[in-house]
């Protein structure tokens, strides 16, 4: 079954899973890496996906109903906010090291979004190590990285419109983006993975698709 076959809704009744009203005002950006990520993901039957962002109903419908994924939603942005509010950011690396109880190689794909941008170096390193551990060999990880100086203190919720378009919806954050990572820093961070594809979008967002070597 090809990718396009999979993303054709399996049900004719449109009232099913997608309850999230995609706001008309949300900016839409073309994504180049998502299609490749989906191709990696759907190369397996019943793929297991880890989403590190806040839950988005339409994304759950997209992956669950249309692609047949099992989705784990682990909103690390809320964890980051909680640590920030408690003034316990120094404990975040330790927290992240024990955050994922799943076995090694448990996930076929990971949606990291732009989470790394909001973490300190130690926390980013801890998270990258854990994500590398729980990703199965040949699995894919999609990460977004800013390339402009950090100035916003808002998180972004990424809403999948289709395999080549994403809507961005910002929401309140307790912490802004930290320093911009250079490509070589990102590659070092995910040392256990290899960069499969990298794109610089018109909105200055870098999309990087990592694959775990077999």
């Amino acid at each position, binding site marked *: 079954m090809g990718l396009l076959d999979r993303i054709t809704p399996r049900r004719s009744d449109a009232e*099913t899973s997608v*309850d999230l009203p995609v706001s008309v005002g949300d900016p839409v950006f073309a994504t180049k890496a998502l299609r490749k990520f989906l191709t990696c993901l759907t190369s397996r039957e019943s793929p297991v996906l880890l989403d590190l962002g806040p839950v*988005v*109903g339409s994304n*759950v419908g997209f992956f669950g109903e249309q692609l047949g994924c*099992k*989705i784990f*939603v682990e909103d690390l942005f809320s*964890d980051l906010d909680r640590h920030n509010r408690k003034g316990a950011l120094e404990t975040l690396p330790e927290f992240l090291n024990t955050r994922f109880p799943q076995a090694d190689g448990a996930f076929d794909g990971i949606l990291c979004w732009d989470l790394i941008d909001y973490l300190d170096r130690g926390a980013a390193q801890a998270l990258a190590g854990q994500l590398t551990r729980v990703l199965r060999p040949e699995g894919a990880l999609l990460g977004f990285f800013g390339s402009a100086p950090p100035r916003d203190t808002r998180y972004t919720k990424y809403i999948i419109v289709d395999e080549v378009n994403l809507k961005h919806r910002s929401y309140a954050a307790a912490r802004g983006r930290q320093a911009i990572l250079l490509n070589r820093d990102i590659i070092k961070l995910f040392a256990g993975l290899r960069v499969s594809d990298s794109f610089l979008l018109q909105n200055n967002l870098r999309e990087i698709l990592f694959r775990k070597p077999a």
Partner: protein
Amino acid sequence: MWKRDEAVRPAPGQPMAAPLGSTPMTAGAPGSRAETSHNVEKDIVNIGKSVVIKGELNGSEDLTIEGHVEGTIQLRDHVLTIGPNGKIKAQVFAKAVIVLGEVTGNVTASDKVDIRDNGSVDGDIVSPRVAIAEGAHFRGSVDMQRKAAAQPPKAEVKPVAAQPVASQPPVPAPTPPAGPRIGA
């Protein structure tokens, strides 16, 4: 499983009376008056917001929970609604589950799980259809495979152990495993 209270049956043509809220119940009494209101036409039972139930809750009617339930809930072919005041710490099996309150535990539905705005689920969802509204909280996994529509395990009907709120403190609110309640 619920005894019908003829006294609250609305007159023909009249709308159903509002839920009565709390009704003290005798602990462990089979057929306790856990229902606080009853819609005769649609067979919807309402558990009021001061009612605390611990144990297995089985039924063959649609059920709305505004109180606290801890244990297991099985409504094989019916709709379970967790109202805005409902706090559930239980494994849930039903045809459809609508969440406006808080659920901690795994939810299995043969038809649909619907987490409405401000609804919260900490647990794994197995259902062929899942709707999560903007503003809802969810942490866990979602499995929408066709095999998800499996029937819940058949369990023997057991009386629930219901306690009058006045004599026993209510069940503490379910605490998410990690992270505060957040809006999606």
